[in-house]
């Protein structure tokens, strides 16, 4: 029933075989009959079957059409996703760029045969060969959703949109005449060091930062110094989307890095909130639907990957989550509720301004000796702790 590539048959597989011989050999060559179910590790809100809100459902039709029952396991952080995939027993995962390369390096996901996914051609050209899921020309998944980490601000305090991230990095008097001290927030994750590095890219070109995820010791130290200044401005870092929403409602917060998700929810509540991507650009996340190397239901998984690109999923999910579809047509083709205006509000046109999350590794392309993620974690703890 199932046929497998022999490693020697495909040149593509051969290329991958140098790094991951086993997985390359196992790449599916034909989608057979469904196995009856598919289990997915996903971000909360990513796989909706109309139970939270009947208007948002991109699972029921898939189950009816393929008889593959979808099982969902939600994970709150990239690290939980990696841990669940290491544990095994799942077929697919919606991995962000700071998890996807770890999964590939750990051999937890297998290459995906894009010839078996007819709608691959619909994927945004800018995402087809994105480095967070494509290693040495081999694709390890299908792009799912992406979005920027925007600067959210209070429109009553800021008459016009802030032009720079300096409102959260440097002490200053805001347009309403009061200091920004205690009224701005930053993200409580080590990956936020990249935001500081990105700010330095624009304001301290002499440091020579080429990518905010590839920092040598000097660049890294400069980023930490900037974050130490920020610590004096920030009363509480945000970790949970709903706590940030509450802080903007009750704690007098006026500016912070955030996701379109929170911006949309606050706007829906009628608060004077808007968001912008300042001149320095923004960091962002891009998620990929990846296939477990020991997936028990590969046929259903392939069917779901196709479904994710060719249904109402892209359109409705981008409305639901405040993200940008990986299939540009989903903004306009009426497959769901998304509109062209909605897409550009969520960041469709800002792709080039976004530095997508990736895991910092010591062995990086730009330079020889980069500071690895492990150090980002302990040092960011130190910065937040006031060191």
């Amino acid at each position, binding site marked *: 029933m199932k046929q497998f590539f022999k490693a020697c048959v495909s040149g593509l597989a051969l290329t991958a075989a140098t790094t991951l011989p086993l997985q390359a050999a196992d790449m599916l060559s034909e989608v057979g009959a469904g196995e009856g179910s598919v289990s997915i590790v996903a971000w909360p809100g990513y796989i909706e079957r109309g139970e939270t809100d009947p208007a948002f459902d991109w699972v029921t039709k898939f189950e009816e059409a393929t008889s593959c029952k979808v099982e969902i396991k939600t994970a709150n952080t990239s*690290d939980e996703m*990696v841990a669940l995939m290491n544990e095994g027993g799942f077929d697919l995962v919606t991995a962000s760029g700071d998890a996807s390369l770890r999964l590939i390096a750990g051999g937890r996901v297998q290459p995906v045969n894009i010839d078996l996914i007819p709608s691959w051609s619909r994927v945004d050209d800018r995402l087809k060969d994105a480095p967070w899921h494509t290693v040495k020309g081999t694709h390890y998944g299908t792009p799912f959703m992406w979005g920027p980490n925007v600067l959210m601000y209070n429109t009553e305090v800021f008459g016009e949109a802030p032009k720079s991230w300096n409102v959260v990095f440097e002490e200053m008097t805001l347009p309403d005449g009061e200091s920004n001290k205690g009224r701005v927030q930053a993200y*409580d994750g080590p990956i936020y060091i990249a935001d500081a590095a990105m700010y330095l890219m624009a304001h301290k070109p002499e440091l020579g930062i080429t990518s905010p995820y590839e920092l040598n010791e000097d660049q890294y130290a400069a980023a930490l110094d900037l974050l130490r200044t920020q610590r004096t401005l920030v009363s*509480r870092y945000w970790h949970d989307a709903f706590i940030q929403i509450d802080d903007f409602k009750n704690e*007098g917060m006026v500016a912070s890095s955030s996701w379109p998700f929170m911006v949309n929810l606050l706007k829906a509540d009628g608060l004077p909130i808007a968001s912008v991507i300042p001149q320095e650009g923004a960091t962002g996340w891009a998620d990929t639907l990846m296939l477990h190397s020991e997936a028990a239901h590969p046929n259903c998984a392939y069917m779901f990957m196709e479904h994710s690109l060719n249904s109402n999923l892209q359109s409705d999910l981008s409305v639901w989550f405040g993200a940008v579809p990986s299939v540009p047509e989903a903004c306009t083709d009426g497959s769901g509720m998304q509109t062209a205006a909605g897409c550009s509000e969520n960041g469709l046109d800002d792709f080039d301004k976004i530095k997508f999350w990736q895991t910092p590794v010591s062995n990086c392309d730009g330079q020889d000796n980069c500071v690895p993620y*492990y150090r980002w974690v302990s040092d960011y703890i*130190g910065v*937040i702790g006031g060191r």
Partner: protein
Amino acid sequence: MSDLSSNAALFAPRSGPLARAVDWIIRHPRMFVFLLVLPITLWLGIVYIGALIALLIQSFFSIDEFSGVVVHEFTLKTYGELLRPYNLDIILRTVAMAASVTIAAAILAFPIAYFAARYAKGKWKALFYVGVMLPLWSSYLVKVYAWKLVLAKEGILNWIFAKLHLTWLLEGVLSLPVIGGNSLSVSYIGTFLVFLYIWLPYMIIPVQAALERVSKDLTEAASDLGATPRQNFRMVLLPLALPGVVAGSIFTFSLTLGDYIVPQIVGNSRLFIGQAVYTQQGTAGNIPLAAAFTVVPIVIMGIYLWGARKMGAFDAL
């Protein structure tokens, strides 16, 4: 032996494997006890102690600084990392918070428990129990989020202070170095208040139980012999009720030591031990350091329990 053989003579061996197994167990009472104790020993041994040992072993490994991969070789390097200033900060911060929450809980709980033990009768006693236990019946998360709203800059507490024209007082407290902050909900004071609220019942109940056991005659006798109320409290009531206070403090101290949710929701984002474990094992993949961090509360609680035993906290068990 003679008993067993006479039994064998009295009862002819029954047929069937189950019946024979039952007979065998009846004739071997020690085996019967062994089989009874076996499951719980296995549970304690494998699930509890085993997990603890697995954790301990992890803490003696280290993470390779270059690749971030765990090196499975014995080393004390990870414990050395605990002594780095920012990690030491986390430990001291957590212990200081746990200690102050415990002391405050003891001071608050004593009069409440004393009233309940001495004066509350019948209906009032029932009301006391309900009042103390009621907060424990609602979800922990709901309580913490509710407190976040109460303590917020635009929350009810600030509003009350403003209405009473006491905003200067609140601002004065919040302008204190270290414990102050931009608002109650982003300061150590806020974290402290929430911890105190959440764990207070765990202090009241043991103290009340201890006070119930202190005979009224003893305090009356002390008064008759000329002890002032102050002396009476210091020399009679407190020493006799101390095991209860210590028992309660075990709860409040250890619960604060291990909590990682309260400081994440209310506070200034500076990490506590529980959060450090969470981030190190999760985001960093640094299991050895997370394990070493976990050993810290175990050691502290070990010392604490040893001291508590000396003070007689377990005498009434």
